[in-house]
């Protein structure tokens, strides 16, 4: 039973345009949401996070939007660059004794020249 869902396995975007990666979740008790980026043959790296009490967090070219009523979040990358080609994992955190992070399946982003 997936608690964090990334329904698009892959996405292709022209360089310079906006990339929008989507994520849905089922547990309304999640406290934080995180995005990780993964290049082939490397481990994931942390990108950006957002608290469940916020609706937007921005860091340079990366912005995450949270819609709690829809249980949906999205990562916007503007402008998209060739180095953004990677797999992006959406993750959710329930803050309790264990602070475990639950990951989605990932979306592979291809930035086209």
């Amino acid at each position: 039973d997936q608690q964090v869902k990334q329904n698009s396995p892959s996405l292709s975007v022209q360089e310079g345009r906006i990339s929008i990666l989507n994520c849905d979740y089922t547990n309304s008790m999640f406290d934080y949401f995180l995005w990780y980026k993964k290049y082939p043959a490397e481990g994931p790296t942390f990108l950006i996070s957002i608290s469940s009490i916020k609706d937007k967090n921005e860091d340079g070219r990366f912005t995450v939007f949270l819609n709690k009523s829809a249980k949906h979040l999205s990562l916007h990358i503007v402008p998209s660059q060739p180095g953004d080609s990677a797999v992006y994992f959406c993750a959710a955190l329930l803050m309790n004794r264990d602070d475990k992070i639950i990951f989605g399946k990932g979306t592979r982003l291809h930035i086209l020249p």
Partner: protein
Amino acid sequence: EADIYQTPRYLVIGTGKKITLECSQTMGHDKMYWYQQDPGMELHLIHYSYGVNSTEKGDLSSESTVSRIRTEHFPLTLESARPSHTSQYLCASSDGRGRPYNSPLHFGNGTRLTVT
């Protein structure tokens, strides 16, 4: 820059062999984790540790075991490898003083295990 190392990067081994996947970090992080990931699938937490002599099983049932005798070292062992253990294994650590949203997981580059 995170310094967390996993060896070997790739391992092909026959059924029934005992294997140990190594993970070391030089950041002095208290929390360490093992995740298992199949292509196109989620990362599943299989073991975690919040400090020396502390180990817990994760959400995904695993036949592997772990130990945490030193802060920097968190090896994962499979006593008898089977083809169903074929997967990528990712080790991660985080600063135990913070919470995961501001003290995010730092991952190693993973070990891709194939059991024939």
